[in-house]
């Protein structure tokens, strides 16, 4: 029997990139500091030495140009992996992503699919202050034509990148900054990991926690604490933010009859708002309690630890939200 391999999230992403570079000559990686520096979060460390300057390309600080060039290279028959250092900087490439990557297939009547993978780090939790702590997944998930995913586990970090490269559409891959150092075991073959579809991360009967990204692990902590009070929470890891897996969410909520959405984005206009609406639209009469949301507080994420923690959807807030629901309908 082979021992399960214990690696970090960072290493899992890197393995997926390396395997893609080895197996498909059309694949290349480009972005700021991906080469000589080894990647801002060290994801691509060593790849320049292994694959050379042609396939590991350091770019100028020109997000619009190099993301657009990735889209153009995809149109030209290659399979680019574009690394935008963080979602914060991706705003400088929003024109290319929203106006080109998302529209060209449809607007050309299907002639020009855009098979580009755009990876970016996301989220808060490292005391990086407001401009380096954004969670704009909802903005991208708003846009038809894009696929938006956020792997939260070691298996998904590797397998979903592989699946993204096999997808003919533009895929935005969010990698939570706070998970790069997380260790875990690879348990699935990368080839069996799907790009879309939510997954039950923890089974439970009393309440459904719907979440994604780094908040998955906040929910795990909260579920363990709730279990000591006899409340069994089911956790749905969305994995894909566009498309959303309504069926998986509803399958769980119809059994638990209670839902809490946990989302690191700001509450107003959030993914949590969208998911709440879908639950109400599809399962209003199955609910025993109002749907609750635990989101980031509506402030630019502050620098000091205690304020940053207070702004994020931490486990204690999740526990409190769940306890506020479980009295209902009993």
């Amino acid at each position: 029997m082979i021992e399960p391999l214990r690696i970090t999230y960072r290493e899992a992403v890197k393995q997926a990139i390396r395997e893609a570079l080895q197996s498909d000559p059309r694949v290349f990686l480009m972005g700021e500091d991906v080469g000589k520096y080894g990647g801002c979060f060290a994801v691509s460390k060593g790849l320049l030495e292994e694959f050379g300057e042609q396939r590991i390309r350091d770019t100028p600080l020109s997000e619009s140009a190099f993301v657009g060039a990735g889209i153009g290279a995809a149109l030209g028959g290659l399979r680019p992996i574009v690394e935008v250092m963080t979602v914060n900087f991706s705003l400088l490439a929003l024109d290319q992503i929203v106006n080109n990557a998302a529209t060209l297939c449809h607007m050309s009547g299907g002639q020009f699919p855009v098979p580009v993978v755009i990876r970016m780090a996301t989220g808060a939790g490292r005391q990086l202050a407001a401009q380096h702590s954004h969670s704009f997944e909802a903005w991208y998930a708003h846009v038809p034509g894009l696929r938006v995913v956020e792997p939260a586990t070691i298996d998904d970090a590797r397998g979903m990148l592989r699946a993204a490269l096999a997808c003919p559409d533009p895929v935005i891959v969010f990698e939570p900054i706070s998970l790069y150092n997380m260790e875990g075991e690879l348990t699935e073959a990368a080839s069996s990991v799907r790009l879309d579809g939510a997954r039950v991360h923890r089974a439970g009967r009393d309440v459904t926690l719907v979440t994604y990204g780094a908040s998955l692990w906040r929910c795990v902590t909260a579920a363990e604490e709730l279990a000591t009070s006899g409340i069994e929470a089911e956790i749905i890891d969305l994995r894909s933010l566009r498309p959303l897996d309504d069926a998986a969410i509803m399958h769980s909520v119809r059994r638990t009859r209670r839902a809490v959405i946990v989302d690191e984005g700001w509450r107003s206009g959030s993914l949590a708002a969208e998911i709440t609406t879908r639950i109400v639209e599809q399962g209003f009469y199955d609910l025993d309690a109002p749907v609750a949301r635990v989101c980031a507080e509506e402030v630019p994420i502050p620098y000091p630890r205690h304020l940053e923690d207070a702004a994020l959807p931490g486990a204690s807030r999740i526990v409190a939200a769940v306890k506020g629901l479980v009295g209902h309908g009993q």
Partner: protein
Amino acid sequence: MSLPFARDVAVGLLRDMLAIRRLEEKSAECYSAGKIRGFLHLYIGEEAVAAGAVRQLTADDAIVATYREHGHALVRGMPMDAIMAEMYGKATGCSRGRGGSMHLFDAARRLYGGNAIVGGGLPLAVGLALAEQMRGTRNLAACFFGEGAVAEGEFHESMNLAALWKLPVLFLCENNLYAMGTALTRSESQTDIQAKAAGYAVRAAAVDGMDVFAVEAAVREAADAARGGGGPALLEFRTYRFRAHSMFDAQLYRDKAEVEAWRERGPIIRLTTQLKAAGLMTEDDFQRLLREADAEVEGAVEFASAAEWEPVADLARHVYAETAP
């Protein structure tokens, strides 16, 4: 008077320019009749740039254009029927009617669209050129854009990246002096656009955009250098838009006298006069070319009028790829 080209080539260029001119004049009529909707940006006055440039490219080169791209599509060989049907929004349009006037796409001819975001096409062209370079071909990417795009960051980012990686990109700037209604002198500190290339060590030249032979020569030279690994070039074609920016434009920002002065040195008048003076074309020949162009335009209008609409049931098709590219 000698011409730099044989008669057939020169007449071919004139035919191309007349086809663009007559197609667009008819398009304006169809717009007024409510058959074409949305935005319609006419290229009238600027035909020498598309006619001169596009034929210097090979069939394997990639083209990225702007929302003022009927001429580029036509010279590239897109049937006029497909262009007109697209402007009518019909299913037989080159983009199945989903794009309209500003978004003519043609995979078979490597036309990667009219792009409606000023400057938005430049990074795409850089990426298309990167794909060619990485595959080791001799193909290039030609990117048309107006002088208004020069004020966008994407112009500067794209010039830098293309030069840094020595990519085979032709940056083809159609300087018609007005970014919609804002004159170049009201928007640029340096109005000599080709001079901006020096900051990126990119080869550049200003070209008389009303002289189709000058356009051809400049593009041929730049294309040869780019194919040979010489990296990108910026060509600034000094031209003029005779008509309004779009059909909504009352043209309050420029004098009629200025427009008239440019019309007198328009590309079609210029080439027609040259050909007649050289004894290579008579007025009868010219009228015949005009009739041929008009016949093609009429055929395109009939085709577009008779064409089917895309079924509403297909509304959501092509948002995502139906097959792996």
